[in-house]
């Protein structure tokens, strides 16, 4: 009951100082931003149109430079879906591609090298319509002596799922950004992984740390703290309640932000991966550590500014320097292996020149002692970045195919991850920081 009283008091403070509105408002703003972007399936007809427009434009503008004398006009005719009412990924396509020349003679000459052209055109079409299955190009008898006519036909799409079909983002419901044409799950991945898990998490943690940094120093102000420590509640308990109160705020706010983003993304894309929701716990756990740092310095200095600065410093040292630093150092451990893998992927094993280089590539980038030191530091520092590995893995499991390179990368990172180690080392930090705070608070004269 005392805990609820303290929580209610913190809530009252947060509401009165508008902190609560700022926090939730910020989250809702992000939700709104994510929700303001829609996704429209790429239309094959528009795509084909765009292709021919571009081809014509290129030819007209660069004909001189290429010493081309004949400049045909490309166009699409008789476009049809084999299943007119089906979704774009559930139907086959057929259409005619025509090249119109100014002179009959030019057309005739071009037709003479047709054998080559069909192959070229087919490659070009397959490049453009990479999402269509078994696209074939064949010649059609011309309807006009000045033209060359091809039939382009595809049985269907490579995928039968909307999420794999390319989509354009549509800003604020109306402005399509046709430059981007990615499977819809790539956008979800972009939002969930890159924006929320990386940039968003850092910003959200920073803002939350700043906002919640005021609670404890305010409680410890002269004239206020006296009134609390004379209540029949042990000082460490009072401090811990206050800490858990701040954490609860952050948790609720994270729930608003993450669930909100998950909802709008789901409504927009119909992809409802659960992995992203698990990020709530990883974020809250990370924040528990930052807030413990903030609490310690709040108790030591009674100044919110000091608490904020020290939390930022902690973040900088442990998350940035040690976290990313260790990831980098760790990745150089198998330098030669990486090189080999790359060669295998590009099928260059038989390339003698490369093999020669490979033998010169050292096994590791750095001397062994550096790795020993890095491992030792990593063992005893809080695992902020480790938890990102987990969140990443959860998100990628929902959004990528098992054999995609991103997924493989995440799996490798996750394989080297130890739950017990990450949770226990970070928890020990939290416990030690809180114990120090409580000890100091309990023995201090106010």
């Amino acid at each position: 009951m005392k805990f609820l009283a303290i929580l209610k008091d913190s809530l009252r403070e947060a509401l009165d100082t508008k902190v609560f509105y700022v926090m939730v408002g910020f989250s809702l703003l992000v939700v709104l931003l994510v929700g303001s972007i829609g996704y429209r399936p790429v239309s094959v007809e528009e795509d084909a149109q765009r292709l021919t427009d571009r081809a014509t434009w290129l030819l007209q503008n660069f004909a001189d430079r290429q010493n081309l004398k004949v400049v045909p006009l490309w166009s699409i005719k008789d476009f049809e879906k084999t299943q007119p009412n089906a979704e774009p990924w559930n139907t086959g396509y057929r259409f005619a591609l025509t090249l119109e020349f100014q002179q009959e003679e030019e057309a005739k000459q071009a037709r003479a090298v047709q054998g080559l052209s069909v192959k070229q055109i087919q490659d070009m079409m397959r490049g453009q319509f990479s999402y269509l299955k078994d696209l074939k190009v064949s010649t059609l008898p011309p309807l006009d002596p000045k033209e060359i006519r091809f039939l382009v036909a595809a049985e269907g799409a490579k995928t039968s799922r909307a999420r794999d079909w390319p989509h354009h983002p549509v800003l604020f419901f109306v402005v399509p950004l046709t430059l981007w044409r990615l499977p819809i799950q790539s956008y979800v991945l972009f939002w969930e992984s890159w924006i929320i898990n990386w940039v968003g998490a850092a910003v959200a943690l920073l803002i939350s740390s700043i906002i919640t940094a005021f609670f404890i120093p305010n409680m410890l102000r002269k004239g206020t703290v006296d009134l609390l420590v004379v209540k029949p509640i042990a000082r460490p308990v009072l401090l811990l309640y206050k800490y858990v109160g701040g954490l609860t705020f952050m948790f609720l706010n994270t729930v608003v932000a993450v669930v909100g983003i998950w909802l709008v993304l789901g409504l927009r894309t119909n992809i409802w991966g659960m992995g992203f929701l698990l990020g709530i716990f990883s974020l809250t756990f990370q924040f528990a550590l930052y807030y413990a740092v903030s609490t310690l310095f709040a108790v030591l200095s009674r100044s919110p500014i000091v608490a904020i600065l020290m939390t930022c410093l902690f973040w900088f040292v442990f998350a940035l320097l040690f976290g990313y630093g260790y990831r980098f150092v760790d990745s150089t451990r198998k330098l030669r292996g990486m090189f080999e893998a790359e060669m295998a992927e590009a099928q260059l094993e038989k390339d003698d020149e490369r093999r020669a280089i490979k033998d010169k590539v050292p096994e590791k980038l750095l001397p062994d002692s550096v790795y020993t030191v890095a491992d030792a530091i990593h063992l005893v520092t809080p695992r902020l970045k480790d938890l990102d590995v987990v969140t990443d893995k959860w998100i990628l499991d929902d959004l990528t195919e098992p054999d995609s390179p991103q997924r493989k990368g995440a799996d490798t990172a996750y394989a080297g991850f130890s739950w017990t180690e990450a949770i226990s080392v970070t928890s020990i930090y939290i416990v030690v920081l809180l114990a120090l705070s409580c000890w100091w608070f309990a023995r201090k004269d106010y």
Partner: protein
Amino acid sequence: MPVIQTDNLTKHYGSIEALREVSLSVQHGEIFGLLGQNGAGKTTLIKILLGITKLTDGSARLLDRPVGTAAIRSRVGYLPEDHRFPEYHTGASLLDFYGALLDVPRSVRRKRIPETLEMVGLKGRMNYKIGTYSKGMKQRVGLAQAMFHDPDVIFLDEPTDGVDPVGRREIRAIMQHLKSEGKTIFLNSHLLGEVELICDRVAILQRGEVIREGAVSELTLQHNQYLVGIAPEGRFPREDVQRIGFSVAPQGDLWEIGLRDGQSIDPVVDLLRGRGLGIRHLIEKRQTLEDLFVETVEAAEPGVDRPAHRARRPLS
């Protein structure tokens, strides 16, 4: 069993000796006043009793438990001197919050909040934020929260600070009321007139040491001094009284009669009655607490009697 008991209580703040071997005891149902100059250690003593500050040496007990015991604090009320109540609370919500921390059940809180705030004259403003209260109103809220949970002992550190004269009288009445309910009140104040009116016993603290302690009535009594007044028709027989061995001095309309040790005032009364004079006043003369305080404090510090020096004396 005393409610408050300290034995050779000593407190150092670094090199500052805030309290030196203070031994005091306060009995149940008393209003006890602690007097002293700025920096004498009054607030420090209260803070030690409440466990806000730790003692350096000696011992202190509150309600028969060592100070600092969390459990007994629900039986203690406290109004600090430079309080700063969270401004986001209203008078009512502050009492509710503190009440919850003090284990007052919700139903009791709901009933007592308007009652208590009415006692301190704040009922009309109880749902306004404390940030909008005047200084005296904040003081009243402070008093309200100190007595809200029906504590056995109440510590008031300068409760009338910033309160207008009418309000001060109300606060005195509240203290009397609390006393009548059997509560023990420990009061720090500079307003000696007030302390004199309300306290049963006082102690004077000087540089961390108790230099005087006792019942107010005893401390202010001036032995062997009486004030006598007679009915206006008569003339006071000054020479005759002097002749029978008393010193006489006019004191406004009254006469101050000085007795030697062992002497009684009765011969004077007999003489006046024998002359057929009507006696209208006969009072054993008292000192004001203020006189006593200044006298005691100066006596404890010989050589610092000149005001210029006093002003420069560091408060330590």
